[in-house]
């Protein structure tokens, strides 16, 4: 299997500001009884360098599928995905991926997990160590370097999992409902940490969630997806300043406006109707 056969296509005028261009993709899945399910339909989406984009939608709308296609875990049924102006074919090793569950390698310590992506970078020993230590500190996990994932709480595993994706500094990080299974407090703390790290590093983040507040609180732009077949219903710009205070996000200027627009779309989707 081709690992990262990324073919360059120059005939489509490249846009230097865009890191991801999803062009008209659809994705069909075959069910066990040989029926085709259309998970995604005619999705087009551009993501610029340094942008924080959230993708929000009801469960089963194909938002995780979209992320997996960008990562190159599987190929779209039609359309194409351009990454840094090259078509994604096979695994896209230039993105980092944070899965729904932490999925830390259970046989490696926190330290080894965070450093996992650095191995293929062939850093000198000292630089590698510094890098790992830096990201472990960033996650507030110092003192737990030698712990195995089985010894960590849910929140700590989550942190380590995010740091594993950040540590080797891919230009884009894809996050698939990373805070989904956490309790409300831990979730807020982690959202806050993620924003602080992102404000320092400004890596591009595509963040999938089903939580409307989370979607607005974190993002520059919110991509709204609707139910099967997954389509993009709208893209909402979030007019809030940064840095943001996650803990009092409701009071921040611009939150209501963006959240109101988002809720309007979903209210329509849920067929609750206007009150």
């Amino acid at each position, binding site marked *: 299997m081709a690992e990262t056969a990324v073919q360059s296509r120059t005939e489509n005028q490249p846009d230097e500001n865009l890191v991801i261009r999803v062009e008209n993709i659809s994705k069909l899945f075959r069910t066990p009884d040989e029926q085709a399910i259309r998970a995604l339909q005619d999705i087009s989406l551009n993501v610029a360098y340094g942008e924080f984009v959230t993708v929000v939608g009801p469960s089963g709308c194909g938002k995780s599928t979209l992320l997996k296609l960008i990562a190159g875990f599987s190929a779209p049924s039609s359309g194409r995905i351009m990454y840094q102006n090259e078509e994604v074919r096979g695994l896209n090793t230039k993105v*980092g991926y944070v899965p729904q569950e932490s*999925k830390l390698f*259970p046989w490696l310590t926190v330290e080894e997990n965070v450093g996992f992506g650095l191995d*293929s970078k062939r850093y000198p020993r000292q630089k590698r160590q510094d890098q790992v230590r830096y990201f472990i500190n960033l996650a*507030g*996990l110092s003192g737990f370097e030698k712990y195995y994932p089985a010894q960590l709480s849910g929140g700590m595993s989550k942190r380590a999992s995010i740091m594993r994706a950040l540590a080797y500094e891919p230009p884009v990080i894809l996050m698939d409902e990373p805070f989904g299974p956490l309790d409300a407090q831990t979730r807020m*703390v982690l959202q806050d940490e993620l924003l602080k790290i992102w404000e320092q590093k400004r890596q591009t983040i595509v963040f999938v969630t089903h939580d409307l507040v989370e979607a607005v609180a974190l993002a520059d732009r919110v991509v709204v997806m609707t139910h099967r077949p997954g389509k993009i219903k709208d893209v909402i710009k979030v007019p809030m300043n940064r840095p943001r205070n996650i803990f009092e996000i409701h009071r921040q200027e611009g939150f209501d406006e963006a959240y109101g627009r988002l809720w309007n779309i979903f209210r329509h989707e849920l067929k609750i109707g206007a009150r």
Partner: protein
Amino acid sequence: MSKQASHESQGVVSGEGKEIPRSGVRFSQRTVGVTLLRAGIIGGFLLFWQIASGRWIEPFLISSPSRIFSSLVAGFQTGDLLLHTWVTFQEIAIGFPLGALVGIGVGYWFGRSRFLAEIFEPIIIALNGIPRTALAPLFIVWLGIGIWSKVGVVFLLTFFLNFFNTYTGMRQMDQEFIDLARLMGVRGWKLSFKVIFPAISPYVFTGIRTSIPFSVIGAIVGEFIAATEGIGFFIRLSAGIFRTADVFVGIIVLMFMVILMDRIADLVEKRVLRWQVQTEHVQIQG
């Protein structure tokens, strides 16, 4: 980063974080009690055996602990027993690692290649359906009555258990681990050593440990059928002339062989799988 974060994480660990017990023996009152009770049960059984023998039950049927002990000592003094033990040990020492290695290797390759698995899986399952000890006479025909026919039987028994466990491990493996690792630029043999082997290692160890007693069974069955040396031969010979104490001596030697191999495997397993949370005994009543 934030102090709050590290504070929170500390709290979580002491609160709900699962602890992996440190290795090393801790002599609590409980362990002492358990050990004493166990020793008492074994001692009581041996005592009962000793008393029963010759009083209520014919000694040639069950011998007695004292007779078995003196036979054991005598056997090692004459060197006779040592020779038999050595022969059986050799058969296992060659057949077992070979069977385990080939079993693990084949299980791994079948797990990697769907094509191979599709071709060979039904064949292997069919072969596994044969009571494998029934093949032992064939090995004698093919490889003679020396150690190599027994090595063959040991190999066969060990191979299947290791193969099936490793193959199961490969099939149960979480695809997401592979995807993540490959996304982070790990591939080829590095992927095998850094991700695949660690991921399947619990299964591999289950295979190794369950196959230990079977490897000894393999050697003994082979020796029962046709041999001039080995513990199996010694047991059969002793039973044939009603030297019951020697039969038990043979059994004891085999028992210690299994225990020794199991302890070694246990040590290695604890070392390799130290990342696993030790499961505690299920508590049913509070």
